[in-house]
């Protein structure tokens, strides 16, 4: 059933697939670090030398009862439940930014435990439910 023509076309397709895979592997190993949108506080802690004055994005949960706000700045602790990072920011935060929710901060590291943020993004999780449902869940806790 497979004629010579069909075989040559299949060969063409397989060679394109092979080249694509090679290309993909090459791209993957080059971009490995850049594909990650943010690092976690523990990953920052592991790095030997900290690059001061280079931009970095860190993601984690905002620790409970850690947000302290005054007229000029907002200060909170970002945690991944292993290591913690103190973040200082001045500017408006997104509506969904609050304690015990995910956030991604972009800014410069002062040292391994202290970050001055230029931008704060709120992270939304995959749960969607009506408010009544949330109350039921909270009461059940």
């Amino acid at each position, binding site marked *: 059933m497979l004629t010579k023509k069909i075989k040559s076309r299949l060969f063409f397709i397989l060679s394109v697939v092979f080249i694509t895979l090679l290309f993909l592997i090459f791209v993957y190993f080059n971009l490995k670090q850049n594909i990650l*949108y943010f690092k976690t506080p523990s990953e920052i802690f592991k790095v030997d030398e900290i690059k001061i004055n280079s931009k970095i994005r860190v993601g984690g949960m905002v620790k409970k009862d850690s947000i302290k706000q005054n007229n000029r700045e907002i200060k909170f602790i970002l945690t991944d439940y292993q290591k913690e990072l103190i973040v200082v920011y001045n500017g408006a*935060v997104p509506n969904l930014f609050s304690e015990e929710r995910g956030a991604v901060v972009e800014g410069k590291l002062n040292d391994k435990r202290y970050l001055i943020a230029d*931008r704060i993004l709120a*992270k*939304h999780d*995959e*749960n*969607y439910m*009506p408010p009544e*449902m949330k109350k039921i869940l909270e009461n059940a806790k």
Partner: protein
Amino acid sequence: MDFFSFGKIIVYIDKFIKFINSIFFLVLIIGLSFALIISPIDYLQGDTVRIMYVHVPSAWIGLSIFSMMAIGTLLNFVFKIKNLYLFVKSLAPIGLLFTCLSIVTGSLWGKPTWGTWWAWDARLTSMLILMLFYVFFIIAFKIFKESENLPKILSAISILGIVNIPIIKYSVEWWSTLHQPASIKILGSSSIHSSMLVPLFLMLLVLLLYCALIFLMKYKTEIIKIKKQNIKRL
């Protein structure tokens, strides 16, 4: 093979278009009233959650149409089936439309929720690449219309493009992204409350019907174009 003759196909397409036209507005009204009025607000996002009812189905449609196009192109390239070529050509514009729609609605949702219109995270970037591949497809159809190499070029594009599909799907699990992981899983329970799943699947039905309508109209035009060429040849 009588069933697949162009003359017969046009008759069936016309019947199908009429059928979709007769039920489309009814389904649209039901879908929209569920999505905009009946369904509850989200505990965190409020009314912004309603964007999801367009965003998620259009992303699904964008991904599945590209997969269909890629498989169709490869089969056409190997076995030279004329119908498949027309099939792929008619799917391209509607797939591009829905991919753009999912990017635009996602952006509209991202501003109030995340606090930014766009982020270069893995999910959003791979979706943008999918859109580029749709554009490549359509450009290739236009530029290499007369060329013998068109099937070869198209299959190269589709192989490169189809690799992107699993990357889009699993980007949120493999890497840290701003985009949240999938709420609806093929296996296992979903993390969307059932009162929000109803409008989601109704809107999916609406968009699928719209897709089918545009696809059939385009398919019919392509067949008529070929018929006209044949008449000229006589």
